[in-house]
């Protein structure tokens, strides 16, 4: 029951060697030198205390066998008490500091991966579902943190092993060798599980990310499910995805659970050998009771960290797998890379497209611009090839054309949302690859086709590009964008939280807000990707007026989906399959009687009274026909 939602990896996934992963992880901890030193010092101290305790007990037991000095025994006991007290205090400081370090490291990791993700261009987001990325940033870093915490605790147990081992060697060599002889078996078992464990873990995490993604999508589209009454269908589909995650994670869990018993068997055998060899030794008189005690105790001390590693192996592997997934995200290079970091006083707004070549590349090769030429040339749908266009400073230009002609692509390239492959785009004579991206985008105002708003107050939404704006400025922007009267109908006016994606507002209102947002930004270059969704005629007129005011004095590119808009612009280009087929102002193009004139005619035919009256036949014949 795959449901086509397989557990495949993402294209940006990479395989790292454990060594590289560990080195990378360690580098995060190095940033907290001071705290780490505290952790290490107290870790060592705690381990010493923990390994000294059994030694003192052994001394006491041996003392019982010999002189049985009461005061000496009391001293030993009191010493153990004190030692334990210190042990607790040491551990207290260790735990506090390690929590701090891990908290900070996970925070840094999240910050890094979040920054890396935000740096990616839109081709990345077109390809990978948001739900999966979110899961990677938050859930995987969480797994990583858990592992780091366990690892720290394990290091302390390991230190004990070495201290104990040193002492053991001075007491009885054959027994020590017996204990040591078990170590290779432990490692062989642990390593044998490693590969399969890692694989299963990755599968498990991916299955979970798929669930995440599924939930995200269906909750986003819940109103469709409701209106079509398709809850049962989603429910069944969800069961499939959920079941898939169940199986993948169960397989993973099963694999891990063979490790622990396997290692326990090794421990059992070690115990048997110690009893046997130690028993012989004791019978022969070479081994004292206290030593026997120490060996039995140290077997526990010795195996505990190893068994812990084994039983925490799932988490440990999960942590490594998680860090692998995170680093893959961090390491994927963004395609939109700036060559220089220019910041100008001002952008005048002269735009030139020079022999531009562009295609939405559909495979992993998009991830690395540098590799473009070494990759085999795959036939790709070119959106533009050899496209040239000059726009003067302050000019208003409208682009019209059929769906798929490349209108929006042109705007997106100019906004630096996608990387182009050939030619160049310059602004004021400077390649847009040479600007500081932040500076550059600040000067370009983009009104996207679909209005996106935040779950925040209306005021903050308008101020999004200019947080310093005053309330007066916000109201001014709204007024410019066709009037602010509708704001009074909201429960709390400007302070109303308009919910995720602005769902509290009507579609038309959302467009007005986005318009106001851009006006407030006051950009040198305005790109208006007209919404395909139209607003009612009243609002339309208001926006129209606002637009006419806005395009004065700044370079404006209007991707027109409605010809209503274009009559007042300086120049219109008609785009067809990435080529300019006509160019001129409204009157010239009408004169030309070409594509534009035809478009305009038909458009106005649809808008004309005559058409509307005639539509009766159209509507009614269809309605009553057959």
């Amino acid at each position, binding site marked *: 029951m795959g449901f086509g939602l397989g557990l495949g990896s993402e294209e940006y996934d990479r395989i790292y060697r454990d060594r590289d992963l560990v080195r990378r992880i360690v580098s995060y901890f190095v940033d907290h030198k001071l705290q780490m030193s505290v952790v290490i010092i107290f870790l060592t101290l705690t381990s010493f205390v923990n390994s000294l*305790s059994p030694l003192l007990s052994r001394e006491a037991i041996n003392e019982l*066998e010999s002189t049985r000095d009461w005061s000496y025994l009391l001293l030993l*006991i009191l010493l153990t*008490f004190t030692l334990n007290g210190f042990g*607790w205090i040491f551990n207290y400081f260790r735990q506090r500091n390690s929590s701090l370090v*891990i908290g900070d490291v996970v*925070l840094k990791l*999240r910050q890094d991966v*979040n920054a890396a993700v*935000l*740096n990616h261009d*839109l081709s990345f987001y*077109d390809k990978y579902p*948001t*739900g999966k990325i979110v899961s990677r*940033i*938050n859930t995987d870093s969480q797994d990583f*943190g858990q592992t780091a915490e366990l690892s720290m605790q394990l290091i302390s147990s390991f230190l004990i092993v070495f201290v104990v081992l040193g002492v053991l060697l001075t007491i009885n060599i054959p027994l020590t060798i017996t204990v040591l002889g078990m170590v290779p078996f432990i490692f062989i078992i642990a390593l044998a599980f490693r590969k399969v464990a890692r694989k299963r873990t990755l599968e498990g995490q991916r299955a979970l990310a798929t669930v*995440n993604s599924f*939930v*995200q*999508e269906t909750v986003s589209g819940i*109103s469709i499910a*409701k209106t*079509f*009454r*398709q809850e*049962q*269908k989603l*429910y069944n589909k969800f069961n499939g995805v959920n079941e898939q995650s*169940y199986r993948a*994670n*169960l397989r993973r*869990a099963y694999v891990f*659970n063979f490790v622990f018993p396997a290692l326990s*068997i090794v421990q059992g*055998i070690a115990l*048997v050998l110690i009893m046997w060899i130690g028993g*012989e030794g*004791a*019978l022969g008189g070479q081994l004292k*009771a206290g030593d026997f005690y120490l060996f039995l105790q140290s077997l526990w001390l010795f195996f505990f960290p190893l068994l812990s590693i084994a039983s925490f192996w799932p988490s440990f592997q999960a942590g490594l797998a998680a860090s692998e997934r995170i680093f893959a995200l961090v390491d994927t290079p963004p395609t939109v890379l700036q060559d220089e970091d220019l910041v100008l006083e001002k952008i005048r707004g002269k735009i030139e497209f020079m022999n531009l070549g562009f295609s939405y590349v559909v495979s992993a090769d998009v991830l690395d611009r540098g590799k473009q030429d070494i990759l085999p040339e795959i036939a790709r749908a070119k959106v533009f090839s050899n496209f040239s266009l000059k726009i003067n400073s302050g000019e208003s230009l409208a682009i019209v054309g059929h*769906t798929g002609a490349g209108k929006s692509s042109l705007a997106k390239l100019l906004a630096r949302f996608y990387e182009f492959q050939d030619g160049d785009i310059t602004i004021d004579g400077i390649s847009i690859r040479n600007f500081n991206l932040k500076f550059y*985008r600040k000067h370009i105002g983009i009104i*996207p086709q679909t209005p996106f708003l935040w*779950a925040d107050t209306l005021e903050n939404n308008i101020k*999004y590009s200019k947080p310093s704006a005053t309330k007066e400025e916000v109201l001014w922007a709204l007024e410019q964008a066709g009037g602010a009267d509708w704001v009074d109908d909201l429960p709390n006016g400007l302070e109303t939280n308009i919910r995720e994606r602005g769902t509290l*507002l009507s*579609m038309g209102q959302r467009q007005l807000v986005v318009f106001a947002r851009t006006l407030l930004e006051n950009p040198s270059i305005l790109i208006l990707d007209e919404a395909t*969704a*139209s607003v009612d005629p*009243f609002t339309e007129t208001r926006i129209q007026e606002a637009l006419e005011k806005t395009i004065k004095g700044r370079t404006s590119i209007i991707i027109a*989906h*409605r010809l209503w808009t274009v009559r007042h612009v300086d120049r219109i280009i008609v785009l067809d399959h990435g080529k300019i087929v006509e160019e001129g102002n409204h009157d010239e193009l009408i004169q030309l009687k070409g594509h534009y004139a035809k478009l305009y005619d038909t*458009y106005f035919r649809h*808008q004309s009274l005559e*058409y509307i009256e005639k*539509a009766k036949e*159209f*509507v009614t014949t269809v309605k009553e026909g057959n």
Partner: protein
Amino acid sequence: MATGTRVQNHKMEFTAKEDPFGDIRSKGAKRWIIAHIFHGTNKFFVLIIFFGTILTSILNSALMVIIGVAIDEFMAGMGDRLFQYVVVIFIIGVGSPFLNLVNNLLRETLAQRMERDTRQEFYTNLLGKSQSFHDQQKIGDIMARTTNDVRMLNFLISPALSLIFESFSALVIPILFIFLFYPTELLLAPLVFTVLFVITLRSYIRKLGPVAARLRGEFGQMNAILNETLSGIEVVKGSSNEEYESKKYLKNAQLFRNAFVEQGYIMARYLPLLLIAFAVTFGLGHAIFLNLQGVPSMEIGQIIAYVGLLGNLRFPTFISIWVFSIVRLAISGSERLLEVMNTESDIDENIQGRTAEIVGGISFRNVTFSYPGSSQPVLHNIGFEVQPGQTVAIVGTTGAGKTTLTKLISRLYDVIEGQVLIDGVDVKDYHLESLRSQISYIEQDVFLFSSSVFENISFGKTGSIDQVIKVAKEAQAHDFISKFPKGYYTEVGERGVQLSGGERQRVAIARAFLADPKILILDDSTSAIDSETEDKIQYAISNILKGRTTFLITHRLSQIRWADLILVMKRGTIIAQGTHEELIKTSEEYRKIFVKRFDLREEQLLKEMGVT
């Protein structure tokens, strides 16, 4: 399998066939968790795990006792039974891991089952919630609940539950052995320890509670913020606000980190660690003291075994730090799940309701509506009548309540006052399934699922590929779909990026065609520039009006012009209604639409339209 009882205390728009936990959900997180643990065959798993754990513990303690006896014999120079001891130790030492394995596998199965079942329950519940509920949720937070909070319940079983069993037996059994095989006074150390342990552990768990709740809460918040940012990435980039978004995320990640560190501080202060060290030392001293007193059963080997048994208490002490933080997190996670599941949903499935086929007459009677959580009415006193098969056009300024009005028909929301009737029956009296399956909705912002075009079209009603092609043709969508590389099996991207607005709308029209509803609501807002597309959309829309009652929210004057009934809305009220001929004469507002569009003076318009 247990047969489920339908939820009685909650209104739901959708319920699974079985919902055995419906009643328990309102009774708190702990009871809900317990009900899940003991649900169906799960309880056998729990029992086996419990007894298996006890058995392992007995074996481990017995091993210590046997070793103690053996050492005493060796020390006394008696070696005849050496081989027997070795064999016994071997059997126990190697046998108990096998027992362990069986236990572990059962535990894992139970843990994964818990995760799967609770997640399914939660998701089913989400599906059952009304639209007004979903409007108020943040998707990222819901996601955090469905994946991460649910996962806490997995951790609760594996490892927490079995570790609790182990801790319990590792606490009780050594004490039992000490009681059985050693002088009674040696119980002093372990018993005093146990009492103190329980007391300190309780206070530890109590302190963890609020921190765990914060950890889960902050995680949800962090997820919500990130999800929103990534959904609006185009705006973020366009405004060059990556840094701001980064900071916003960081602020939340910082809050999460603070909660995490605080949890660490509480763990650091965990007192039982000190207690156990003292207890073992005290026990050793006590045993030595008894040995010095010459108590007969306290040979050196016995001391070693006794201290070994006391050492077994270390395990529950150590592990509890961790186990109970998992338990707390699982409880906090469950509380977050229940918080959502127990939120009162306002619309019910109404299984007993009317299921008759709808003819299509609709009337609104004095309808007033405001969105939940807001006192500002969006619709006031709406009233109109529609005959079956009529086309109703709704016009008005943005935010006038046009879309809201149509949502009351399919009960995406319920009216506050007044009634909405279909064929003379209040919509509330219909079986929700029956009602909604006869109403289709083509929304303004067409949402497509990231699956194939075929699946998207057949979303409302399963259809064969031939049927899908047929409806796509009627919706004028066939041409562009067949141009896609994989035709009808082309995947539509998550954000529907590959389709233009007009194309998406036609896919939605095809979807509605296939569903063949009695009532259709078409929130039409696309405006295509090129004639071809425009004609196609017009044609598709006209096509779908046939034989059903249709509500059109549209700005296409040609559609408005010929509607059977036109509702002119302004600020939540209907200011005029009637046919075009009537309204053009009587309604100033209605005339304005045409005046504005054609840049005409009113007299001219009336003249052109042949109205005198």
